[in-house]
Each structure stands twice: as structure tokens, then as C-alpha cells.
């Protein structure tokens, strides 16, 4: 059961990563030639999804401490990146408002969107609320769990074909090694909005 919990934590982390990446690509196009109401709808959907992933939490059993700490840090990093993109989106949506006399969109060379967003967005909260929500989650995470950063080590080497520098040491436990690669397959299925146990679990354990 404990292993399962950990696995779901890992999966949630990967899911957030994926959603954040997709969201970022949409934000990238705001203000450019691919911008439009549909793009913005889709972006809203993605960000809502990510916010949801961030908001769910469940208790997990206190095991595999180092792994949980590592995941906690990674999750926080993902949230941070997501918040940054939200800020950008906020700024760009304000700058290039689609209604009325907003400035002309930049002709950036990008064409129309590929058809159909993958998810149905729920009732989308407005951008400021989203940012506040994510910020609040981050603050809560940072303030309640006291995890010093230097205890977390990368399990991956510097990258595929590491660049001459000494790779970082291998991860803490046997489970940690292939964890990232396993995620690719599992993440898609796990991304249901149901019971996704989440890394705030760490807090219950760590605090």
C-alpha cells in the first residue's frame, strides 16, 4: 500500500509536469498570430487542470522519506514554473485583449491551432484567482514542510549523454532510479481528476 501511495505521488508529479508543459506552449502563443479566443479557452482549461492537480491532497503513510522529499521539491518546482506561466498569461492577456480596441496581434509565423483540446474545462476561475490559488498552495507547502534543499539530490545524470561533467550521484533508493521513465506511460492514465493522492501528503508525514 505504501508503495502504491508513493507511486501515485510520483504520478501526480509527472501529470502536473505534463500539464504545465502543455499550458506553457499555449501561453507562448498569446499575443502572436495564433492567438484567439479558442487558444485562450484552451489555456484556461489547462490551467484549471493544473490547479486542480495542485489542490488535491490525501494522507500518505510515512515511508520512503527521502523519495517523498525529493518529489516534494520537484512538485514545488513544477508549481513555480506554472505560476510563472500564469503570470505571463495574465500580463499578455491584459496586453492583448481580444475585445475591442486591443493592440494588433504580432505576426509571429505561427498558424492556427490543431483541432480540439484534450479536456473539457470546468467553470474557469479568472486568472488572478488562479494565481492566488497556486501561490497559496506554494506558500503553504513551503511553510509547513521544512525540507532543506541540499538533502535532495538529482537521480538523473546531467542528461542524455552527459556533458563531460561528473554526473550527480545516484538516487536514494532502488525505487527512485527508473521512476522518471516509468512515468511516461502511467501519467496519461493517472490524470483523472478523481482520487489523485498528492505530495502534500509529505506534510502530514514530515511535520
Amino acid at each position, binding site marked *: 500500500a505504501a508503495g502504491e501511495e508513493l507511486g501515485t505521488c510520483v504520478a501526480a508529479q*509527472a501529470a502536473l*509536469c*505534463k500539464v*504545465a*508543459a*502543455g499550458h*506553457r*506552449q499555449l*501561453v*507562448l*502563443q*498569446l*499575443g*502572436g*498570430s*495564433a492567438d484567439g479566443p479558442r487558444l485562450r479557452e484552451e489555456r484556461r482549461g489547462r490551467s484549471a487542470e493544473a490547479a486542480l492537480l495542485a489542490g488535491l491532497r490525501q494522507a500518505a503513510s510515512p515511508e520512503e522519506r527521502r523519495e517523498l522529499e*525529493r518529489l516534494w*521539491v*520537484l512538485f*514545488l*518546482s*513544477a508549481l*513555480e*514554473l506554472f505560476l*510563472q506561466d500564469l503570470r*505571463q498569461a495574465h*500580463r*499578455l492577456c491584459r*496586453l*492583448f485583449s481580444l475585445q475591442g480596441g486591443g*493592440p*494588433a*496581434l*504580432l*505576426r*509571429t*509565423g*505561427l*498558424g492556427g491551432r*490543431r483541432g480540439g483540446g484534450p479536456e473539457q474545462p470546468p467553470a474557469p476561475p479568472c486568472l488572478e484567482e488562479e494565481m492566488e490559488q497556486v501561490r497559496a498552495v*506554494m506558500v503553504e507547502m*513551503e511553510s509547513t514542510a521544512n525540507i532543506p*534543499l*541540499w538533502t*535532495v*539530490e*538529482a*537521480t*538523473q545524470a*546531467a*542528461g*542524455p*549523454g552527459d*556533458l*563531460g*561533467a561528473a554526473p*550527480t550521484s545516484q538516487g536514494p533508493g532502488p525505487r527512485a532510479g527508473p521512476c*522518471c521513465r516509468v*512515468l*511516461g506511460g502511467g501519467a496519461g492514465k493517472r490524470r483523472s481528476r478523481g482520487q489523485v493522492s498528492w505530495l502534500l501528503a509529505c506534510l502530514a508525514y514530515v511535520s
Partner: protein
Amino acid sequence: MTVTRLDQGQRYRPRMAFLKKIEALMVEMQNPDTGIKMQTQRVMITNIPHAVAGNDILQWILQRLQITDEEALHLGDLFVKYGYIYPLQEPKNLTLKTDGSLYRFQTPYFWPTQSWPADDTDYAIYLAKKNIKRKGILEEYEKEHYNMLNKKINYKWDFVIMQAKEQYKAGKERKKADRYALDCQERAYWLVNRTPPGMLDVLEYGLDRATDPNENKKKTMDVYRREIMYYQQAIMKSRVKSSVSLGGLVKYSEQFLSNDPILSGCLPSNPWVTDDPEFWDLNAKLVDVPTRMRVERWAFNFSELIRDPKGRQNFQLFLKKEFSGENLSFWEACEDLKYGDQSKVKEKAEEIYKLFLAPGARRWINIDGTTMGITVKGLKHPHRYVLDAAQTHIYMLMKKDSYGRYLKSPIYKEMLAKAVVPQETVKKSSNFPFGRRQLRSSPSPVILRQQEEEAKAKEAATTVDITQLCRLTSPAPRLPVYAGPSSLPPASPGPTALPHSTACPSPISVALDSTAGTEREQEPGGAIPSPFPSTAGKVGAAAPPKPRAAALSLRRFLKRGCLNSPVFATLSLRCPAVPHGKVQPLGERERRLRQDAKAVSSFFQIKMDIALESRTYPVGSAEEEHKCHQVCKDSAKEVICPWESPAEEGRAG
């Protein structure tokens, strides 16, 4: 998560007003009628729209802004350099070419913002993505960055790799033309924000600022009030004519030229050149025999003397002779308070007060009443600079008064004569560069500091300034007036008692007996004939055995220093056994005494106005009697800091 740097108040990027202006122009360029005409870029088999020619950009700027060719070219070039437009055929060459070279507009996401800089994490993800796409494609400087980031944000490196993979996958889902454009955009962004070596980093702006330029401060009354205060203070700032300040600089340079090791060489030799650390040894902080140059430097001005530890040591010797050693000690204590461990500020301030400032303190310094008042008030909430006023006062006192005499004193002259002039040594021939050199390491700073503290403690313990005894009545603050005990032969205290103290052992006699042998230094040569010779005469009867408490009480009494002989004579000491509890109201006689005392102090023009009013200030002997009893009861009572027990002691000084 990102580790945020220590916030020292400087975290805002400066206002970059030009950004908004460029953005406005960029948007105008998009206008289908008045904007720039677009072309299609052909990359192999793909067609990517929205390319513009360099020349078209230039022409548009010229026409829109009505400026000269040169300016327009420069402006267009800046657009490219700041990353608003990026070149398509030579991506790394961020200049505007006024021919048919193609450019494209950067997406607003990648526009430079004033609010935040390009993020390290983002850069790491970008490099990782690039690496995933094709191994070994990173340039040298990119590889360096990559490795450095790997170390710097190692804790989130897994996230970086994960995110890079996800972004790469997300990109793959797009159609080819879009993917190409997106890649170009991102590459252009990072060329601007992480410039390759050799390229000018246009976004560099120096240090971060302390105020947020974007902050929209509502103009409330408070804001205006603060602005007014700020400008008033700015007006009050003293200004110096540049001719005066330059003259000062010239004078300084001329004076210090001979001391400059680079300009005038240093004896025996420059350690960096000859590998001979003798120069440093000879100029160690508290070396026994300093160099001549160093001692001569003390004569340049007071700050030179006081900033050199050896100079301070020598000066302290001189001050001790003049009985004002407490001034320098106080100054050093204040420095320690300012620059030392701030967690102990409260304790340190209290210590300093008890030792130097409290009425009757062991090493009381002479500062005027106003300063004392300010200081004591400030000590209620102690902080680093709470003793600044007093410290400045003492500094100026030393500078204006003692320093001059010091330079003429035998102590300084002796030091000057003793000072050594090292011989210049020839540079050791480095024929054998790989030879084993005798490199001895200098003493560890920890040990040095320990030694210093030991020396300080030793000095503090052995120093008791006798002048502290009779502050109030001394006409010249530094000379010991109370010649009573010092004129007594230390060996035999002699029977000393007041004429009419038979019932109780005279505390005075008691004290004189016991204190003759206590820690008071018998300062030779400093005593002047006591203005109250009758005092010495009066105290001279046989001394009955004395209880310790009484002795202490008298010592306290004497320290307070009221040795008015008439007061003395009329003193009627009560037995120590008399219980006290309340402060007795002033009786007739006491009132008279009090007035006498007032007369005395005003005669000597001692500015202790505040003190006189306060009951704790032992001007009148009556209070002193009470003090005696209080002390008798609780002989271990320390000097009380006024802010601690205001009810009991009343407001001191």
C-alpha cells in the same frame, strides 16, 4: 522551488521605460495598412509566413519616426538586440541588415520584461531540451552553463529533465512549420538573455534597486509627510565646494604618499614580490615594536591613531597617566557594541551603562547632561547605535584635548624613538622556483582574537581609575581631588574616625581602613593638595572593629564622592542596624546640607542639572545615609539601570 537570495532591500529591477515604447512600436508595425509588409520564408519545403526584410524595417522606422538614417539604423539595430525582432538567416548575428535579410517578430511571451529577469530554471530546461533533440549540439558556452546549472539547481534537476521531455513532446505534436517557428523564437530569446561570450549583453543594468519602480504609491498624507521629511533632510545635508574637497584629496594624497606601499615601496620588501612576509610580521596588529612609518602616521590625525590597535594601546598608556583611560575604553566598548554580536546588544549596552555611565560607575566618563539624558533614554530600547551621541562626545573630547598632549608626551616620543626602520632586503633570486620555500602560516585569527580578549579582560580587571571617587567636587575632572586615602600611608591606615562617632563604628573610618588595601591604585604624582585638608585631619581616631557591611557602605559613599568637609563634619551617622524601608523625608538639617551641596556643585560648574533633581544622585549626604542603610541591608546590590527599576531609583542622570 527557487532559493531566494537574502533580501537586503535591493530586489527591484530598475525602470526600463524604453521597453514599453518599443512594444508600442512593435504593435504598430503589425497594422495591415500602415505596418510593414510581410513575406514568406521558405525553409526547405516548408513555408513560414510573417517574415520581414531588414530594409523594410528601416524604411518603416524612418517614415514613422521622422528621424535621420543613422538614428533609424541604430534604433532598428536595438530592436534586434533586445530581442523584439530576430534574424532568420543568421540567427546568432543580432544586427539589423538593411538589405533583403529576413527577420521575424518575437512572440510577446519572449519580450523582455521589467518585472523579472530570464529564469535559470527556464534556461536549464531549454538546454536540456536542446540536448534531448540532438546529443552534442550544445555550444561550448552552453555546455558550461549546463554543467554549472546542474550543480546550482541540482535539487530540482529531475524536474528540469522531466519538464524538458514534456515540452519536447508537446512541441512534437505541432505541425512542422509551427514547430520550426517556435524553435526559432526560443533560440532567439536565449541568445538575447544568455549572451554567448563575445556578444554584448544589452540587458545588463548593474545592481538591483531598493525601491520598486512599478509601485503605485497612493499619495496619502503619510506619503507626503515622508517626502517632505526626506527633502528637508536633503536640504540640510552639508555640502562642500568641489575646490575644497579636491584640495582635501590632494592634501591627503601628499601626506600619505610616503606610506603607500605601491607608490613608495615598502620596507623591507613587498611580500607579494619577494615571498618574504617580514613586512606583515613587522606590521602585525599588536607587535611589540612598530615600524617608524606607522608611528609617524599616528601624528597625521586623530583617526589614524585611533584606528591602529597599536596606536590605541600606546594612547591608552598615555591616557592612564592622565587619568582618562576610561574615555578610550568607553569608545572601544561602543565600537564593540556597534560592530559586535548583535544578539547580545541588550546585555552589552547594560554592561556599558553600568561600567561607564551610571552615576557612581566604576569607570565613569564625563559627558554633559544633555548627552547623558539622550543616552539613557535611548538605552530603554538598545540597539547598535544607541551610544552614538556619547561616543561622539568622547571621541571629540579625546581628539581636541588629549590628542594634542599625547603627541608632545614622552610616551609617544619614546615609542617614536623605539620604532624600527627595517632594512630593505634584496629580492631573493628565484633561480630555483621549485624549491621548497619555508612557508610558515600566520597565527590563526581565532587565536589572535582570543589573545586580544584575554588582554582586554586583564586590562579591564586591573584598571580602576581613582578619579572616579570624587567626580562631583573635582574642579579639574581628570585630577584626583580626593586625596584622602591616597595620602594615607597604605601600610598603616591609622586610626581614623570622626570626632563624634562613638556609638556606631564610623563607616568612614572603617572604609578608610579597609579600602586602603583594596584595589585602588595609588597614583603617584597625580594628587594635588586636597581642597579639604581638614578632612584628612579630621579622620584620625582609633578605629574600632568594623563590620563588613559598614565598610562597603562607606566605599559606596565615597565613590559617590561627596566630601564636602562641612557636610562631613555635621554628619551624624546612624547605626547600620537601623531598619530602613522607606526613604526618609528630608529633615531640616538635610535640606540645609542639600543646599550646600548644590552650592558646591554650582561652584564647580558641574553640569549635572538633571542629576541634582534626582533622588538617586547622591548630592546630599542624607540620601547617602539612606543609601548606606540600603547597602547595608543588601551589600551585594549592583548599580541599577534606571530603566529597569524606575520606581525604586527614580530617574537617574
